């Protein structure tokens, strides 16, 4: 079986994250880039299947600037078989539709039985890419799975919503996205890091996967303005001396919130 895992480099959520106020794009210089935690879990889900089913191929795929290579290497060091990295200056600031079309084209080129993605990226992604990619590929999608069972020719899992719990399934090939209910990504070992250096690593531009970035017939979603909110400031801070609950009640009354 061939599993393609969609991975994305994002600004580390532990640091300050900024948008460039000129371009509206993520300011990559302002923070440390990391492999999104949810995508580590997606890689882990694929590797767990591969561990139990020898012969499984796990290809990690990203569309990102050339500088994301270190992040892709991390997924290889975890144990992925090979990597496909779409790099193209013309894709800077690509909207969701273009991103989905590029990823789908690369997936088709690579070949796949199953695509695993994160349900939601932490850098403001809307959790829509997996379903868009599925539509472009003409296959079923199962999104936001909190459990995952990969069979020989089908995939199934659970999805939790406010209304209840659902069990969903689809025939392969299919696209799934997983939530943080799935296990964390495994640690990389020195051996894994060394092995990653020798693994197949393909770098392609948009044209190589057959996408015309500048197609004037296709509408794009563009940023028209960006503004920064002033940061929040701390207010009153007291140490409880036995009456903090009463003081808080008085504060809430004074604020008119109760």
């Amino acid at each position, binding site marked *: 079986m061939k599993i393609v895992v969609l991975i994305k480099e994002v600004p580390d959520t532990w640091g300050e994250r900024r948008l460039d106020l000129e371009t509206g794009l993520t300011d990559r210089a302002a923070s440390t880039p990391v492999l999104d935690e949810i995508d580590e879990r997606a890689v882990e889900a694929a590797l767990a299947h591969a561990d139990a089913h020898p012969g499984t191929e796990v290809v990690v795929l990203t569309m990102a600037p050339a500088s994301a290579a270190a992040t892709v290497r991390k997924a290889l060091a975890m144990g992925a078989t090979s990597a496909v990295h779409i790099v193209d200056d013309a894709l800077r600031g690509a909207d*969701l539709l273009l991103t989905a079309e590029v990823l789908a084209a690369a997936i088709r080129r690579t070949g796949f039985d199953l695509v695993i993605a994160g349900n939601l990226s932490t850098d403001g992604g809307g959790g829509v890419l997996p379903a868009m990619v599925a539509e472009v590929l003409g296959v079923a999608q199962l999104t936001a799975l909190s459990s995952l069972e990969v069979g020989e020719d089908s995939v199934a899992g659970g999805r939790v919503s406010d209304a209840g719990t659902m069990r969903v399934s689809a025939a392969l090939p299919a696209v799934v996205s997983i939530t943080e209910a799935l296990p964390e990504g495994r640690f990389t070992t020195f051996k894994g890091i060394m092995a990653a250096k020798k693994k197949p690593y393909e770098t392609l531009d948009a044209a190589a996967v057959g996408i015309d970035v500048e197609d004037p017939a296709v509408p794009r979603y563009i940023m028209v303005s960006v503004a920064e909110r002033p940061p929040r400031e701390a207010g009153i801070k007291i140490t409880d001396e036995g009456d903090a609950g009463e003081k808080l009640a008085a504060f809430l009354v004074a604020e008119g919130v109760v």
Partner: protein
Amino acid sequence: MAVALVLLEVLPGGALAASSAGLLAAARRVGDPVALIAGPADAAAEAAARGAVRVLTADIEPGALTVPVVDALAAAVAQESPDLVLASNSVESRDAVARLAARLRLPLAADVVGVDRDELGVVAHHAVFGGAFSVDGAPTFGPLVATLRPGAVTERLDPQPLVVERLEVVASGVRSGRVESFSETAAPSTRPELRGAKVVVSGGRGVGSRENFALVEQLADVLGAAVGASRAAVDAGYVPVSAQVGQTGVTVSPRLYIALGISGAIQHRAGMQTATTIVAVDKDPEAPIFAIADFGIVGDLFTVVPQLISALEAPKK
């Protein structure tokens, strides 16, 4: 006038989802809100009561995931030529409009907090990185597909006379997943929904156990608040995952947010820092939550909260 097509969700019980009123009100800023209910017409009257000028209904193949709704949306778009297609940013609705956008090759704006129209066309508003940045986006031409963050729009519309129309849908035959089973949440909470709640009381790892979490719920009930939690509290099993506030949980923007035993990690703050007033109770004076709290108490939540509850209840007695 221009049409804004709105996908409404029907709950398992047959009523419209709580997101419906906000969706219709948001869409009204762009055009006449025409509702699509992918299912029986039973909820149509409710859609009109919430401001839909017309309600389209479509028969849906039961058990098939998403694709039949996409087919209905595509038929509605062909019929109405809307300037905007708006749906809730819930998992089900966003899957449907994401596939629609990919199928029709339309631009998609995800997780918007509002939509508007200017002289050039439709504009969508986003709150990025926990609300630290406001971004506006627009399609280069043609209609926009967008998903609206639940609870982000509190405006409501006046009821409209009921006009229902059955939509003819040709099945696309695109492969879909299947819903094999569904079990409804045992006792649906009587508390307000977290998304869009005016007051939220959240508990973190500091609450210590599932049993202790009752104290958080008790304060929530005194304040008529929704219950939230940190990821650590969810991971420890004190509360279901639907209560998670933050980066990878729900984003809330209430009038009052009370954090109990939550240190205020950056990923938690990303989901609540746009609250009007923030109150925090934490034992650790260095907890980062205090950097954004309007009223911070360094203390034990198990003494502060019971005292707060008695003080709030005292005038009522």
